[in-house]
């Protein structure tokens, strides 16, 4: 028997359209989703099926046109402050395009993410830099790093505050196979050891195989799932 408390994230009847006028596209179509606490979920699907939009909606970066979302047992409203607080306290994001702040060094990118949350870098951050193999570029700005290094720094930033829920959009998309393995290993490790929940969008079957559950999307809907 399951309780509501078992789920860190639930979404029901999510609808979302993007664009305006004739360019408007119906991206999510009545999508339902539940994510258990401590679960490692992979979402797969063809390009344009709405995976990234789903992640943005679940990450409270944009409100759905219709449907309801609960995070950590809390029903999400249209109150911007509530969304800000949940993003700050619950989520950690790994974006498809890294999205590091260009004016800051790698270390400062991580520090400001912690500062927003009222925290400071600690030994765990150094460990993450070490694990992701980016300690040597900590003082460099994004423009002085390779794409792979930028992605790994973005992962460090997303995990530095030990978020309860990590939302990752194609985190291995820009990494070579060795770094991809290291990242997936790290995800598994924080998932097993810390109980952190991971929702990962990926095209890679190999990456998806690290997850506990793989959800398949098409045309803004869930097609099915594998365990």
């Amino acid at each position: 028997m399951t309780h509501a408390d078992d789920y860190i994230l639930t979404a029901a009847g999510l609808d979302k359209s993007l664009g305006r006028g004739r360019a408007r596209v119906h991206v999510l179509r009545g999508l339902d989703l539940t994510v258990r606490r401590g679960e490692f979920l992979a979402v797969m699907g063809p390009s344009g099926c709405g995976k990234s939009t789903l992640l943005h909606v679940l990450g409270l970066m944009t409100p759905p046109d219709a449907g309801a979302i609960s995070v950590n047992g809390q029903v999400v409203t249209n109150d911007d402050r509530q969304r800000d607080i949940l993003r700050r306290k619950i989520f950690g994001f790994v974006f498809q395009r890294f999205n590091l702040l260009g004016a800051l060094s790698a270390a400062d990118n991580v520090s400001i993410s912690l500062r927003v949350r009222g925290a400071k870098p600690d030994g765990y951050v150094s460990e993450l830099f070490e694990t992701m193999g980016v300690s040597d570029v900590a003082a460099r700005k994004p423009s002085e790093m390779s794409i792979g290094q930028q992605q790994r720094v973005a992962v460090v930033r997303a995990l530095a505050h030990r978020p309860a829920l990590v939302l990752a959009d194609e985190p291995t998309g820009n990494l070579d196979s060795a770094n991809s393995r290291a990242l997936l290993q790290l995800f598994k490790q924080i998932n097993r050891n810390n109980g952190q929940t991971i929702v990962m969008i990926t095209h890679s079957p190999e990456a998806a195989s690290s997850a506990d559950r793989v959800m398949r999307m098409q045309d803004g809907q869930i097609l099915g799932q594998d365990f």
Partner: protein
Amino acid sequence: MRALPLANILQHKLRSLLTAAGIAVSVCMLITLSSLARGSLFEIADRWESIDADLMLLPRGLRGDSATVAGSQLPDGLADVITARHSDIVEYVVPVFLWQLQLAGQDHMAAGVDAGHWYVLSGRAKVNGRLYDPDGRFARWLDEQILAAPDEGALLDISADQLGDPDHNGLELVIDSRLAGAGRYRLGQTVNTAGYDWTIVGIVPAGGMTRIYMPRRTAQYLAGSGNITRSTLMFIKLIPGVDRGPAARQIAESTRADAVPVADHRDKLTSKFRMMFVYVDTVNVIAMGIAFLFIMVMLYAMVLQRTRDIAILKANGASNAFLLRQVMAESMIITAIGTAGGIVGSFLAAWAIQVFRPLLTVQITIRWIVIAVAIATVGAAASALYPAWRATRVDMVEALTLE
């Protein structure tokens, strides 16, 4: 950790520097123009306050306006009337004839004062050289001319050559050290002004009532169309302990003239030149307005350019207050740099003015620096408000998914 606002400024050095320079120019203008306008005027007021007198006697029609009074105004006989009627409260009366002369390319209010009273106006400063008409030869010669006149009150007919006769030279000047410096005048030099050749016989340290002193009779004769019976105003020294208010009323009553405190001259000057302050302050307001419009446009452009960065911060849970603080801090840092530059610039401008226009006075006071800093701070905060508000309205998904 390097703060984000500082990092952003350093990443766009040229743009930040240009914005700071815009603010620096405005702050420099504000401090320099205000300090110049008020400094030059208050320097005159300070000099008048150095006069060793308590009251000024002015013609009633002027309503106490000492700021621009000149020429023949009060009958000299009033000095004797005051001394005779108010010997219980008056220590001395000094008639002075004011005449506008041009020297070193600038107009000056020259004071014609009897040699025996000169110390009252000059703050008892030591003269380098000598005072004009030191042994009273010129005064005696002029009295003889008056006695030789056919009728009392008739206009005298004395030529410039007679006035400047070396035996009793009445065309002598004492000037102050600033005027001497500005005009590179030296003792014994002959200068031409008002159509006459004058000899500089003394140079006195600056700080006295005026920059040019001359024999009162000469001033009266040359500027008063030959009428040597009237002076411009009279300075009255009261006996120590006498209350100025009642004394001024008593003297005014008996002379039918206005007796006002010498200290009122500052207010009269300020009031007379109020339009100049309005003009200067208006120019300053416009300059500051343009500077802050500049900073607002810069910050707005920054917000538009950095929507992605702002979206990243928002995605990480940054609150609106956090984003506001970042934009405000960036504005404040640039403004602080600009303001500091403007303050330094104003001191450099003051120095340059003293070097190239030594007769102008720039009095930079803490008050104007504080005013400039306060205006800059408020302006920077106000200019940052709209861009900061725009930062909080950034659409995260749109910004993060844009290439």
